[in-house]
């Protein structure tokens, strides 16, 4: 199994541009998550999904959108990128609820200039 994969690994955006961060898992997990991690800080939950067609906001959802049309995929959309969105983005998945072991992808390092 590949686990959780994310693309791209790195990206530089200009202010106001948009992009989609891709996340795919092949473990048939119901729960999927998007986190961001600023330098020297912990992870902050952006959005999560408990199954296909169901998404919900986390701690810091402003400026982002998500969709979950399949069990495997959970893309994160950035609209009108801002320098404050410069961060490392991690996607994760778990079989059950939050308390279960979360499997993380390798991350996407995004810089907005």
């Amino acid at each position, binding site marked *: 199994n590949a686990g*959780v994969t994310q693309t791209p690994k790195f990206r530089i955006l200009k202010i106001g541009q948009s992009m989609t961060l891709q996340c795919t898992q092949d473990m048939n997990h119901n729960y999927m998550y998007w*986190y961001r991690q600023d330098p*020297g*800080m*912990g*992870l*902050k*939950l952006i959005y*999560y999904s*408990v199954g296909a067609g169901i998404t*919900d906001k*986390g*701690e810091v959802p402003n400026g982002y959108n998500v969709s979950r049309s399949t069990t495997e995929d959970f893309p994160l959309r950035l609209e009108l990128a801002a320098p404050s969105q410069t961060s490392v983005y*991690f996607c*994760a998945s778990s079989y*059950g*609820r*939050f*308390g*279960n*072991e*979360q*499997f*993380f*992808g*390798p*991350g996407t390092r995004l810089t907005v200039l």
Partner: protein
Amino acid sequence: LAKTTQPISMDSYEGQEVNITCSHNNIATNDYITWYQQFPSQGPRFIIQGYKTKVTNEVASLFIPADRKSSTLSLPRVSLSDTAVYYCLVGDGSNRDDKIIFGKGTRLHILP
């Protein structure tokens, strides 16, 4: 939502046992305690999870006292490769509003 408090950083030497304590005074009855490890430029990795008393796996041990208001992650005979950030999380997640939060974690630096 149970809040956790853990030391910002710790130093230790190769071959030593390292204990990292996490406080979670308002832990709920259904909450589990979970620890993750994160290396630079990587996503966190699950280490261990427990509910009460002691849990041990091939990587670490987790000690939880009877009142469950704190927990201690124990790493036996650490090596340089154990230098990482360690996160303590508390929650059950059985409710959709119960989001488990990663704090700043504890930066463990192992010295030769």
